[in-house]
């Protein structure tokens, strides 16, 4: 029988079982790295560094995980904090660098692939909308869970998801279902 995340966390807590923690990393590395790649706008090296930092922090602070939320939600929160701290360190005010992004967007050379267009459209969203879309629509978190990860009110998450969706729909109108 496969152990649940809660079982593995308990082993880390009681026996300081690093193999159990390794299993947790194996289970969640893809979603955490994926989220960070999207947040860093596909900077793979930076995203992986932040993902490593995320798991190291999770290990050091695992006693603060109370099991009130899913382990993945708790990890996303740490990952998001790592991302924000790194952005501040780099003196990039998160979500403001939109001018540069807009200048990168050239519809004349848009790739015909839907995925490429989707990723590009996603990267054009302001950070607060992008984060909400990534957590709720891509990673399947509820609005309440996303609010906990992003540390913002529930209503703000709902607004950000709605606005982000509208923008994506407009950008991808040509690809939409008939």
């Amino acid at each position, binding site marked *: 029988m496969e152990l649940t995340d*809660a079982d593995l966390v308990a082993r880390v*807590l009681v026996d300081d079982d690093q193999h159990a923690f390794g299993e947790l990393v194996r289970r969640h590395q893809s979603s955490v790295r994926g989220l960070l790649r999207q947040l860093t706008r596909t900077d793979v090296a930076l995203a992986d560094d932040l993902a*490593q930092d995320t798991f190291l922090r999770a290990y050091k602070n695992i006693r603060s995980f109370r099991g009130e939320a899913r382990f993945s939600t708790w990890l996303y929160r740490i990952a998001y904090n790592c991302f924000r701290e790194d952005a501040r360190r780099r003196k990039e005010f998160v979500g403001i660098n939109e001018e540069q992004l807009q200048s990168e967007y050239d519809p004349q050379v848009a790739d015909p692939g839907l995925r490429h267009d989707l990723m590009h459209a996603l990267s054009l969203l302001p950070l607060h909308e992008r984060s909400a*879309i990534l957590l709720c629509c891509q990673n399947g978190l509820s609005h309440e869970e996303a609010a906990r990860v992003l540390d913002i009110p529930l209503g703000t998450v709902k607004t950000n998801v709605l606005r982000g969706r509208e923008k994506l729909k407009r950008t991808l109108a040509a690809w939409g279902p008939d």
Partner: protein
Amino acid sequence: MDAKHQEDWLDRQLREAAPYIDDEGFTWRVLQQLPARRRRRDSLRAVILLGMALLASALAYVLSDGGRFLVVAMARLTTLPTFWLLALAFGSGLILMAAGVVAAISKASELRP
């Protein structure tokens, strides 16, 4: 095109645009950076507790004239009425049970993730 249909389509595209990322040594790299395992101090703690208990017993034995207080206490117990003996036994049982429950609750909260 209905809005719900479009939302579902968008969400599906977003999920499909996030393929599984192969581990490729990532977990190993994380594990390499973990701090050294905490030393197990349980056995040391047990030795200290046992040593203290033995020392306290030896002291009590020596200071009480070869454990004479036990004989006196037993003699007093035999003179107690049956009701008081039962009450004493019941009270002791309750105290032990309460201590057990407290220990179990404390262990459970330690195990809870």
